[in-house]
């Protein structure tokens, strides 16, 4: 890539910091050039977040239909899978699978709920009521 071809499409990162790219100058020598973003990868990131938004809304629906506990919603909201949530809470994956059932979730102790709330960085009431405060 030539230095004057380094893309300058403004990305959400570009508003905070430009990124270093390696490119060649007119003599073919490598130099660094700052880029504020590239349309191709801005769209790639958008696709990732659109997919996440779909997963979150599907999870919300499952919780409202009593097919899953609010844990599922917050897992998707925090981009976590079973392994990540298990690592953050100290529960086994099979335990979390149980807790994903609404009937089992209803009976969880405050102590266990607190572990989940900490992992999601939210309050226990919000976990139970599936309430999101933007952070």
């Amino acid at each position, binding site marked *: 890539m030539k230095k004057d071809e380094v893309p300058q499409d403004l990305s959400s*990162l570009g508003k905070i910091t430009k990124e270093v790219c390696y490119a060649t100058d007119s003599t073919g020598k490598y130099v660094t050039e700052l880029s504020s973003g590239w349309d191709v990868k801005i*769209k790639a*990131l958008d696709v990732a977040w659109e997919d996440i938004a779909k997963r979150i809304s599907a999870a919300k629906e499952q919780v409202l239909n009593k097919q899953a506990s609010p844990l599922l919603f917050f897992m998707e909201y925090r981009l976590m899978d079973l392994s990540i949530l298990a690592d953050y809470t100290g529960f086994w994956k099979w335990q979390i699978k149980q807790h994903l059932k609404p009937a089992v979730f209803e009976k969880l102790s405050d102590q266990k709920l607190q572990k989940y709330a900490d992992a999601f960085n939210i309050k226990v009431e919000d976990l139970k009521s599936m309430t999101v405060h933007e952070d």
Partner: protein
Amino acid sequence: MKIEFEHRQAAHCESGVTSNLLRISSNSKITEPLAFGIGAGLFFAHIPFIKINNGPAIAFRTLPGHIFNRTCKSLGIPVTRKKFSSKEKAESFLQECLNNGHPVGCQVGVYYLPYFPKEYRFHFNAHNLIVFGKDQDKYLISDPIMENATVLDSYQLERVRFAKGALAPKGHIYFPEMGTAITDKQIKQAIKNGIKKNVYAMLRIPGSFAGVAGIKSTGNKIKKWRDKLGLQKAGSYLAQMVRMQEEIGTGGGGFRYIYAAFLQEADSWLPGNQLADISVMFTKAGDLWRTAAVQAAGIYKGRIGSQEDFNVMGNYLLEIAELEKNAFLALKNIKWQ
């Protein structure tokens, strides 16, 4: 408490941290591309059966930690590295290092990294930054991908040092011994070693998921994605590949441009070995990766999406595989002058 340290922005976090930590010892000779090349940073792998963020697990660089380790080892610099089970011990060790005047590298997760924009915060735990002092409750942070140095309070730093999930950092801290001078002779030898290791990684690792064989195999898989996954999911897979290839921290073109810059610098250290010519081959590879990314974007933007478009996409990777194979064969066959 502030240690004498100058923040410099880099393309890639680990090679940036490595080069910045070695700046004094190497008298600024170990640039980011040299650290990347000596650390044999270039790679390709498409790990089967594993999903990351519900997409394919594709990497364009070597395993986290390898660049720093290999570079220091090749240059004969002793390294201190520690992981911790206790958060308190991790912080007191950090304090101790800073008190002794050591800037230190830390592996962190980016999900809770406050100065990153929200759109970039995934559970990615192999990011690297340097802590170079403390001012009141704020740690002074040099994050190589940021234009300027920044700060984190104790809690924020602890949270990212103890992020959980795959490749959890566990407070991982590392730094090269100070005061060890690096000679030009060592740098020349280290460049040769780095190239040799990278040739091995790209040409000789057995199996079809890594190195140039991996690029070829992924190219062939992409042609089947449309039928196997459906247009929309195939588009999401391609978007994920493009992010791994082009996003922040790659220097563009799936790290191929950093590697080309490395070979160009290596040519001035070891002239007469055609390294500058081989560098041009990697520039071409980087350009072709970017052309492929434009094709992929056409698909995930919904502008194109026929089977023929996927064939074109897959064929780009086959072409890249061939090009990189020839480039690494040229490196393999060097009779060092």
